[in-house]
């Protein structure tokens, strides 16, 4: 009886303890970073992530440490992860841009139509959580207007509620479209970053096949399929090839 109670208490407290450890490791990593020991800093930040907890700052600092140790691929990977958690932090974007300058490959994205560009840019301003909150706010607002319209006795209030509900509905449809698209891509589209110096992409998932192109550290790819130890990847310019699974880490 008593043992069961203690176990329960532990189960309830366990997450708190992990968070505490993550914060401790984070601070230790910061100390090593500031003293210039970037390898040690990487070690501690990775330990902090090992607790199962994460934050934009943690990924950002880890990205910085990898950058300082010269591992551009891993630094880009962690900046991308940090960006997923906090899409509007200017420091994350700045450092990501700097790290991307060190990528050897220049992949030309085919030019897109202006409204596609506009749409992508707009979607890129917000991460999933922001979009979710925005969508929820419009959703609640819309329903409030509808309720007011239904219940109000005053004809004026009814009319105002009706007029106000229309633009809110348009915004709601717009944001929920963005949100659903994002949720869909979050579930189905896996992005990866090349973390090895150089990897050859072949035409099929086997060694010794024709090499189609060669990628270098830091390039972002879309991972579309897996077959054994090989991943099918797609580049921004539309090229498709198979590479070793170990050469790419999913964001």
């Amino acid at each position, binding site marked *: 009886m008593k043992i069961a109670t203690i176990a329960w208490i532990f189960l309830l407290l366990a*997450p708190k303890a992990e*968070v505490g450890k*993550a*914060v401790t490791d*984070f601070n230790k990593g*910061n100390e090593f*970073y*500031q003293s210039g020991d970037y390898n040690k800093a990487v070690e501690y930040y990775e330990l902090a*992530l090992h607790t*199962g*907890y*994460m*934050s*934009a*700052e*943690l990924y*950002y*600092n880890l990205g*910085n*440490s990898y*950058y*300082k140790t010269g591992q551009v691929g891993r630094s880009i990977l962690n900046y991308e992860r940090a960006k997923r*958690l906090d899409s509007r932090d200017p*420091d994350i974007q*700045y*450092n990501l841009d*700097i*790290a991307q*300058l060190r990528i050897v490959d220049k992949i030309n994205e085919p030019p897109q139509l202006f409204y596609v560009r506009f749409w992508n840019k707009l979607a890129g301003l917000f991460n*999933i*959580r922001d979009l*979710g909150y925005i969508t*929820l706010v419009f*959703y*609640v607002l819309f*329903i*409030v207007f*509808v*309720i007011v319209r*239904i*219940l109000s006795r005053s004809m004026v209030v009814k009319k105002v509620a009706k007029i106000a509900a229309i633009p809110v509905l348009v915004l709601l449809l717009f944001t929920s479209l963005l949100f659903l698209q994002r*949720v869909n891509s*979050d579930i189905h589209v896996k992005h990866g970053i090349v973390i090895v110096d150089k990897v050859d992409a072949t035409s099929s998932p086997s060694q010794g096949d024709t090499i189609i192109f060669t990628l270098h550290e830091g390039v972002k790819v879309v991972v579309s399929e897996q077959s054994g130890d090989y991943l099918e990847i797609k580049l921004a310019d539309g090229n498709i090839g198979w590479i070793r699974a170990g050469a790419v880490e999913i964001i």
Partner: protein
Amino acid sequence: MIRVMKNRNHQIYFITVLFIFMFSGVLPAQEPLSIRAVVDRTTVAVNQQLMLTIELSGEGANKVDYPAPPDLGDYLKLAGSGGNSQNIQFINGRMSVTKSQVYFYIAAMEGTCTIPSIKISYKNNEAASEPVTITVINSGAPATPATPAPTPGSEVDTGEDLFIKAIPAKRTVYQNEPVVVSFRIYKSAKVNLTNYGINKLPESVGFWAEEIEIGNQPPVWEETINGKKFVLADIKKTILFPASPGKKTIGSLGIDCNIRVSTQKRSNDIFDSFFDDPFFSRTVRKSIFSQPLEINVLPLPLEGKPANFSGCVGRFDMDAAMDKSHVKTNEAVTLRIKIAGTGNIKIIPKPDLVIPADFQQYDPKTTENIVRNNDGVSGNKTFEYVLVPRFPGEQRIRPVEFSYFDPYGKVYKTLTTPEFVLTVEKGSDELVSMGSGLSKEEVRLVGQDIRFIKLTTRNLIPGSFKFYNQFLFFAAILLPLLALAGAVGYNRHLTKLSANVAYARSRRANTMAMKKLARAKSLLDENTQKEFFAEISHALLGFAADKLNLAQAGIISDELEELLKKRQLDDSLIQEYKELLQVCDFQRFAPADMSREQMQDMFKKAKEAIINLEKAL
């Protein structure tokens, strides 16, 4: 008309083409391929030039490359190649191609040599030239003059009495180390040289060449060589900087000389010397050439090569100074770096001066002072930097290094300036006009690096966290929907109320009755007995009327009883209700004194009756 003309034109073309085919089938297209080697003379004196013409003709001649000039050993040295020419002729439908290439050789050693047979091939056709034998003789033996108009009988000795030599200051030099080559003319007393002109400049592939000015009248001096008196003059001096290591050849220099030769050769004549004047002599033209010169260029040693090696070879000094050490902000300072010495001054690079970003800076002004003399090239190069300090304080400019290779000591040397320290005081805010409209300094990006880490972290969330998978997210979607459903239900209820009077009255009956009862309760007093019972009666009647949707005014208890009975209600309930109404009526119109308790009791009963009826209906 035009169409006809066109047709005729076509016919003409057709016929022409036909003819070409016919002839090409019938006649041999061309002569077979042949090669000829032709020399301008077969006997040549040492230091004289031989011209070899290689002539190709026949089929495919225009497609075959010229053969390489034959190597003639030590006897004749290749001095260069002349022009080539190509000649295509059509004679009676035959095409003949002739092309030729000219090579020049300089005789170097006495003896006999043979120009070997030169072979070429084109499409299985081979051709070879006849070998030619050349005799190289020493001076003294008659040499065929090279002049266009040879004068028979004249004996102009040039082998030993008139020649040019290319004299290098050194035969072995380092890469980029200057070597002075003098082309010296030797003339014995026998030769009467009137004037000369250079007809062929030496080729110096792989060298950077600088000429030393000599002027029209080169200095002349005398020297005795092997007991023979010679007059010497340097007619051309070149400073050569070899650009890459290896064995390099400097081509021969050729000059045309006019030599005066006396026409009459009268022995022991008293007038001999008298007549030995221009009037009685004539001029012979003659070309002489210097031997090609080979120079061995050593690569610069790798050992001890500084990282910032400038590429300069020679001896240098560096001197650097600032014109002021104390200055006010926005006042210009000049930093002058002067590199002086011997060597290739022109290739001295701009020093890698690192100017702090706090300075407004301009491109340096570069001035060169170059002197070319027998020792090579010397001089100096000055770099002048104009700096305008923008902020007060002590500014330091890091020392500048310049490294070069010293070929005499065979070591690399590095010159270093001292560190420049400049004390800047606050001056007027106005920028001294430097032609630029800048008044404020923008923050200049000196280096590029990532931004610093975050020192705190908020919102540590589980790694598997997905916003759209959370319970709260779904709750936030569902709750407003429920609220909406509630609102719709409530609205439907309101609509029913307004649309159905009976339903509305029935729904409101209880509320109304209770209101009346509440009012009755406030009248629960002896003085207001009448009003009390009136209210109770109203409540009872009104409730029943509302429930049954009747007009309250016209209702009487009997009628009510019948209607209630129709609803198949309990008889006792109806009776009780009826009795209560009767009591009320009685009390209203013929009031009898009633105690407060009785009235209370009455109130209770009425309330119960209404509740019971409500339940029953």
